[in-house]
């Protein structure tokens, strides 16, 4: 869990944005939306893993539960 995860997310964001723009220009609006949704889901997967790491650590540090 460090800077490379953040760079990964930023890269995915840029890639998805560019893909969506290109597909939009090519007149494929639905596919551009699909790419956007897929990007959001992939990034959400990464973010949720990070949040779960944090929650486990906070629970163990502060003796929660």
């Amino acid at each position, binding site marked *: 869990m460090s800077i490379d995860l*953040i760079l990964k997310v930023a890269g995915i964001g840029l890639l998805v944005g560019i893909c969506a723009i290109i597909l939009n220009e090519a007149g494929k609006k639905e596919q551009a939306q699909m790419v956007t949704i897929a990007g959001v889901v992939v990034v959400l997967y990464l973010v949720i893993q990070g949040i779960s790491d*944090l929650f486990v650590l906070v*629970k163990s540090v502060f003796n929660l539960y």
Partner: protein
Amino acid sequence: MEIAQVIGLAIIVTVLGAVLKQIKPEIAIQLSILAGVTIFLLIMDKIRLVVDLLQKLANQADISSYYLFIVLKIVGVAYLAELGGQICRDAGENALATKVEIAAKVFVVILAIPIIAAIMESMMKLLA
């Protein structure tokens, strides 16, 4: 110098977020969430040291660790609620952030019930 790491990370995320916000705002929000989580993870290792120190001090002073654990739990709940509330506020969901904070306050009061009861009991003993 861990603080330099945190500041560098924050600046990089700010710049990347400014670019991403124009292209894909929904991924920019997730990027800022991830940055916040990363910074919290960096801090948590340090907080563990402080908590260990507090426990050692409490043991030396013969304070019941039961009450120390309650205080630690309250601090943990407050940390998590702050994180969640700020994420909601970042994404423009002010109402949700306020509700998260209200829920955190309720849970803190519930956690503090044993301490309040103990204070009441000792006050009754003093008065009687």
